[in-house]
């Protein structure tokens, strides 16, 4: 990372533009990736999970979660449009959305592990120099925490069921592999820029390591299952 780190706070879109194009682009990249990925998650996982739920309570909680994720997409989209960004432009969604969801067991493990990755990212952004972004993630974090605790509670029940425990382990193995790239490459010019402008504090590897620590503690300590070996570095 080159140059001094920006330590100021940026109150609104006009102040962001006053700082210059590089700042707006840095915030914009972070915001538009959330616009895309919250929608991709709701469409690929949460909406289909409504049909996979084993009973009414689970079905309606899955629907509530789907609507919350969709709401996150809309709120990030509003932030992007306030900044004058075009969110209709096509962009990559994360590799984790290539995971093909086929069972309720996979869904609950996904909420426990993949939404924890989202929590790690949001906790980093909770100190972002762009205050509208900071305020938004602080408002959304309780919902993401609920998604994780929902997934963890059901994963604990399923892991205690001899008929399900093998499927839980399989879902852990598959989903961890899909989630490692979620945090970006170890060497990342984007991340350097985000940190230089105080949009993020952590390197991609630091965020990945925080996620591995939390999830391995949960999988090994609480589910009594094996957490796959993960290289904290990822070069694509």
């Amino acid at each position, binding site marked *: 990372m080159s140059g001094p780190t920006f330590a100021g706070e940026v109150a609104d879109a006009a102040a962001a533009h006053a700082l210059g194009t590089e700042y707006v682009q840095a915030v914009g990249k972070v915001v538009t990736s959330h616009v895309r990925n919250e929608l991709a998650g709701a469409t690929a996982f949460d909406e289909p999970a*409504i*049909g996979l739920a084993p*009973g*009414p*309570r689970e*079905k*309606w*909680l*899955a*629907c*509530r*979660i789907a*609507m*919350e994720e*969709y*709401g996150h997409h*809309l709120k990030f989209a509003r932030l992007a449009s306030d900044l004058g960004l075009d969110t209709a432009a096509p962009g990559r969604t994360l590799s984790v959305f290539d995971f093909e969801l086929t069972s309720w067991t996979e869904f609950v493990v996904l909420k426990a592990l993949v939404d924890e990755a989202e929590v790690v990212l949001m906790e980093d952004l909770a100190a972002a120099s762009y205050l509208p972004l900071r305020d938004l993630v602080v408002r959304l974090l*309780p919902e993401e925490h*609920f998604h994780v605790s929902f997934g963890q509670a059901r994963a604990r029940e399923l892991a205690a069921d001899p008929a399900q425990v093998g499927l839980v382990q399989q879902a852990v193995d598959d989903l961890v592999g899909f989630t490692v790239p979620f945090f970006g490459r170890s060497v990342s010019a984007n991340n350097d820029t985000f940190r230089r402008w105080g949009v993020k504090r952590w390197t991609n590897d630091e965020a990945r390591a925080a996620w591995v620590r939390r999830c391995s503690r949960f999988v090994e300590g609480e589910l009594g299952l094996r957490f796959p070996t993960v290289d904290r570095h990822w070069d694509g």
Partner: protein
Amino acid sequence: MTSTPADLGALARMTPAGPVDLPLVAVALRAGVEAAASVDPDWLSEVDCRRAAARQAAVAAGRGAALEAALHDALVAATGAAGLDDDGRVASGARLWLLSGAIASALSGAEPDPFRAWATLLAAGWWPIGPSGGRLVVSTL
């Protein structure tokens, strides 16, 4: 605010999975959440199928963007409540499940619209739950 439509009974019996002719009971939220846990599974999956079909039909009719916009309005009204407990989330999720089905069904132009009667109840502030324990249960929030 819940208001009671004059034809509550008739509307409640026109469920999105077809007519249900069981004794109607209106209960408070807590009892509603309890009844919800044992809703007839066949009825539940029939509603789920019709909801999924309505969403597909709305998108196929080129109303995907309208569906997204209408869901947006529904969401602002329905998911704003912070600090819900699990029961509150179940009730809110159930109403969103019906509401999103009703929006998709209306946009797809389905006639007759299987969700219309229950959409009226939702709009009046009710949570129509479904057949459970030999009764047709609706709840106030």
